[in-house]
């Protein structure tokens, strides 16, 4: 089990898509899910997402932790929505089918639960695409794909390098904290909050120093090899658009169009089965 999400190398039709395709697909897909509350569209998008995930060959255990974490967030979100506006659904759909009255202003109303269901589906429609973008995009292609959609390559590369150094910094942190604990710095919960804050400075200070050292070396190495020389640069890992990329983007665009078209048909963002 891993708590962090990172690229998992595999060979699948999804992995073979270019980084830019996956990024643009993810953006369009998210917009399509964001603009609509139409249950049919959201369910269709979620099911398609699951299919894409299966095609990618990734395993449930790769994402279990992340998915459970997100479900937890969604549940909290839904509870909060219900607590603060228990009649939101009634307002939206214009009818009220109460099943059971709970207490005070809270009842189980079909419209409210239908609204909350749609709200949840919006998340579920996007999650597979987001996970696929993170897990199936080679980090090397990440900078290249940002660059392709107009972000400066310097920015893209700094982001990619920062991402790559996360494990190194984690390791430094681990080593430093062990060595400092050996000197008697207590990081357990036994100490008072103020003491713990002070103690963590004993780890952060060397961590910052050694990270600065790292930055100096890498920026020298990059400049010595001509980084920043030209306004543009090429990318060795960049892959040409193939049929699959066009198909993927077409799917996303069609989805967006369908989502927009249903808005026109429904006369709004909501699909109303109650009238």
């Amino acid at each position: 089990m891993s708590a962090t999400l990172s690229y998992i190398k595999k060979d699948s039709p999804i992995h073979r898509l270019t980084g830019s395709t996956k990024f643009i697909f993810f953006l369009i897909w998210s917009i399509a899910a964001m603009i609509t509350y139409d249950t049919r569209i959201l369910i269709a998008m979620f099911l398609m997402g699951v299919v894409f995930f299966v095609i990618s060959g990734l395993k449930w255990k790769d994402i279990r932790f992340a998915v459970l974490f997100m479900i937890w967030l969604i549940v909290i979100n839904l509870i909060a929505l219900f607590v603060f506006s228990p009649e939101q659904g009634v307002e939206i759909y214009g009818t009220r089918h109460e099943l059971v009255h709970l207490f005070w202003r809270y009842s189980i109303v079909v419209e409210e639960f239908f609204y909350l269901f749609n709200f949840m589906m919006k998340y579920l429609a996007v999650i597979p695409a987001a996970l696929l973008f993170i897990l199936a995009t080679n980090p090397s292609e990440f900078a290249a794909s940002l660059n392709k959609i107009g972000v400066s390559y310097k920015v893209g590369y700094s982001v990619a390098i920062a991402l790559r150094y996360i494990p190194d910094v984690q390791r430094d942190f681990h080593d430093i904290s062990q060595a400092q604990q050996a000197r008697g710095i207590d990081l357990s919960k036994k100490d008072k909050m103020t003491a713990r804050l002070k103690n963590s400075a004993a780890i952060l200070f060397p961590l910052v120093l050694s990270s600065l050292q790292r930055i100096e070396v890498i920026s020298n190495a990059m400049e010595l090899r001509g980084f920043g020389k030209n306004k543009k640069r090429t990318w060795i890992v960049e892959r040409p658009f193939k049929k699959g990329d066009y198909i993927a983007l077409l799917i996303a665009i069609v989805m967006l169009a369908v989502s927009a078209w249903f808005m026109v048909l429904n006369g709004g963002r909501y699909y109303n089965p109650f009238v």
Partner: protein
Amino acid sequence: MQEPIISFKDYTYHYRSQAEPTIHNINLEINKGERIIIVGPSGCGKSTLAHCLNGLNPFSYPGESTGSLTICGIEAGKAGIFELSQFVGTVLQDTDGQFIGMTVLEDIAFSMENDCVPQEEMIKRTHAEAEKVSLVEKLEAAPHELSGGQKQRVSMAGVMINKVPVLLFDEPLANLDPAAGRDAIELIDHLQKDGEKTVVIIEHRLEDAMHMGADRIILMENGRIINDSAPEDLFLSDKLIKAGIREPLYLTALKYAGIQLSKDMHVERMQELSLNDSHKEQIRKWYEERRAKAPGKERPEVLRAEGIHFGYTPEKENLSDISFSIKEGEMVSIVGKNGAGKSTMAKLLCGFEKPGQGMLYYQGRDMSGDTIKERAAHIGYVMQNPNQMISKPMIFEEVALSLTLQKLPEEEIKERVYETLKICGLYEFRNWPVNALSYGQKKRVTIASILVAKPQILILDEPTAGQDFRHYTEIMEFLKELNEKGITVLMITHDMHLMLEYTSRSLVFADGKKIADTTPEALFADPELLKRASLKETSLYELAKRCGLPAENYIRAFIEYDREVRA
């Protein structure tokens, strides 16, 4: 006579942040196809010289220069770092830090990407370059899947891909184990001959850098060039010793035997050294006089490991079935390739990690129930990089840290810190900020900050990495003093000199197993074992063989005599 490819004329460089120029009146010409080794003690200006060649000065480290420096006919001061990078390819010391790409392929192609080379051409050229450094199989590998030597080869390919005429190596051996270092020098030699390159190597491990020879050695001291000559002329003079640079071991051995070095002996490399019968006789005679002495007396055991198994993940065992015993007052080296399990063993001893199986005893008592803190009272651990340990701005505070945390009375803290600072030769700096110190001094501060807690055992991770001979001697003599006061010292190291000169025993690790527990002299007389430990033979071994002497005993005799002479 052709134009020199690099030419310094009366060149002085003055960093903006420094009061004085760092290098003065440099006059140096380097011709096309030459191989130059630049040596000198830390702070002599050799890195500054390198930074002037590749443009990091003044691009990254601003400063003023006077005089002139031309590279391939171009005035370096007027060209930027990018223009200079067309002519001078730099391989830095830090094999990890300079790895830019996410994979080997990307790292080799990095400079071409910046030059906007079309993709197809990049792929073709990257493959061709990877072939030259035999990394074609590894093109898709990420840096953490590579050894130090492989990473360095990637960096070499990455700079050569630009077809640069000059290759500049900034301490290429500092982060490699001895066997990988030897391979690196052989590869540099091959690449130079193959591509008609000019090679400049900055390195203080002179004997290792000279493995494949050099045209000239430049010796620097205090920002000036004090020698510019063929290697043998330098070796026949006493300039190296005066400047505090270690001369090749075989030369020391010859001098100890009373042999007068001369030009016809080809002293520049062990492989070319010619010894006549009377020389060999002299060495044998010296050896007979110095026959090994009786071994030392038995001492009580302080530390014992029994059948230790450990893995960071359940799938892979990083240590398997490790057993050893350390006696009180010993000085032991733990050696082996990167990733062989040496540091992991140290972490288990300190209690940072718990063994999956097996027992650890301190003075015969089972340690498994002790916390990190409790173990730290007996076993002190000093990390390789002092910057990873120092957490207070002032020296006093830093050394006092562990005592302050124990909430000892102020008077006692002061007394113990002062005492420790005196032992470590840092007393006069007690009120200084840490960042005013040199790297070697910082290292001492970290050792002091551990010693202040009065541990009986000190574990040091690469105590001398990146140190020149003077600082090496300083640190090691200091550790030896501590050891003579009764502190047991364990050192994780790649440094062959350290093993030979300062430790009486070596634990050799390979692939998570302890493959030998022996004396350093026996280790260096066993080519098969050396290979598995990723070490290399010393020239002393070769010398003993040529004179028909038993290598192990000869090396021991040499070390003992050397210790006497240096003490």
